[in-house]
């Protein structure tokens, strides 16, 4: 129960943060910061994939409604929700995940988190810009935006965890 409330609050916060703060930042070179992939990444591992897809779809659509992208974010968020179980399984530690673990920087370590979440973000951003431009002739521009944007987004997502997540006590 408390998990559901926690994730609902996060849903709203990530929605508002992405639409009103990160989508409004003008960094230049077409870079866009994406923080809502972090929400999808932090969903419980045990969650039903249908539920996670619906939640991501709604999150994406919410952001779309507030920034006039009409389904672009929904599409990219859906890709993440669909791919996450496969990705996480691919990078499962040798002795498996602890039950009920949250895939944060603290629990998984910097190297694992940056690596796996980096791939996660890369897939998301590439899809997002490809659909947005929708022209092969602008492929290099898409590549530039992706390559510059992903490390920045990764940094911001790690920073968010430092600022807002409690460090779990050592067992």
């Amino acid at each position: 129960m408390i998990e559901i409330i926690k994730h609902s609050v996060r849903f709203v916060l990530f929605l508002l943060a992405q639409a009103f703060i990160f989508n409004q930042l003008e960094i230049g070179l077409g870079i866009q910061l994406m923080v809502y992939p972090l929400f999808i990444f932090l969903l419980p591992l045990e969650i039903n994939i249908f539920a996670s897809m619906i939640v991501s779809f709604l999150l994406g659509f919410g952001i779309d409604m507030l920034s006039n992208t009409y389904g672009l974010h929904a599409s990219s968020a859906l890709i993440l929700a669909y791919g996450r179980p496969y990705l996480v399984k691919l990078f499962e530690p040798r002795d498996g995940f602890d039950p009920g673990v949250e895939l944060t920087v603290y629990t998984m370590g910097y190297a694992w988190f940056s690596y796996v979440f980096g791939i996660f973000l890369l897939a998301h951003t590439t899809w997002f810009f490809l659909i947005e431009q929708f022209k092969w002739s602008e492929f290099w521009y898409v590549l530039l935006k992706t390559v510059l944007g992903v490390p920045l987004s990764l940094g911001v997502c790690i920073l968010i965890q430092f600022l807002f997540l409690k460090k779990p006590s050592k067992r």
Partner: protein
Amino acid sequence: MRNLIAFFRRFRIFLFFALLQGIALTTYFNYLAYPRSQYLTTASAVSGQLLEYHNDIVKHFQLAYNNRKLQYENALLRKRLANSFIRVDNNTVLVNDTLNDQQYEYIPAVVINSTVNKRNNYFTLNSGWKKGIKRGMGVISANGIVGIIHNVSEHFSVVRSVLTENINIDVIVASNGIPGILKWNGMNAKIGSIASISNDLPIKKWSKIITSGGSGLFPRGLTVGKIKEYKMVEGKPLWDVSIYYSEDYRKIQNVYVIKNLLLKEQKKMESTIPSDIEDDIK
């Protein structure tokens, strides 16, 4: 039949994914081409209201710049007021002006949401059809043109800004009247481009670009920008012209929606052109 059910059971996750993905992509591409309702855009009541709150905070960030701009514009308008002129000739009689008919009216509005870093950028205004805004009207600011109304609800409207790929506003080079079509290449919010200027026509760097007024959306002669550079297009007899916009779209707040009172008449006259001739012109 059993195989079919087995197939659906086996691929149910992927099918569900494909279904949702289909919904998202169809809405995206449909809305890009033509918006059918305002519920999924920032023109809807809930998002519009949220963005209004957001704008209440953010509008102060550029306050000094915008105030200066408004002040400048006020000064300019004040100069044209009747009481800032001195009567030189006392013999004339003031009559109701029948020489000039009002053609354009301006509806003031405030941009409450805008982006400049996407491929196609839309601005949200805090006025809707209650104030007389309709789809397809032109939008300008004090320094230049802004875009065309894309979608309207009761209290809000979404503008397809000049920072979209196919904005296609007809413009001319001010000094010699060469016509062109305004486009945007998606790279930089300060730089636009003009297509379809034939390369046997002489153009000069830094010449002013203004609206042509041909489509009836904008009055003739509004500043759009200045020519930054021009190059040959490979394999086509055209110039590739890029321009500096005269307006800084990253800071834009106060805009005016243009209502053309004679648009109906113009459209009616133009609809009498036989269609086969029109095809020849294109």
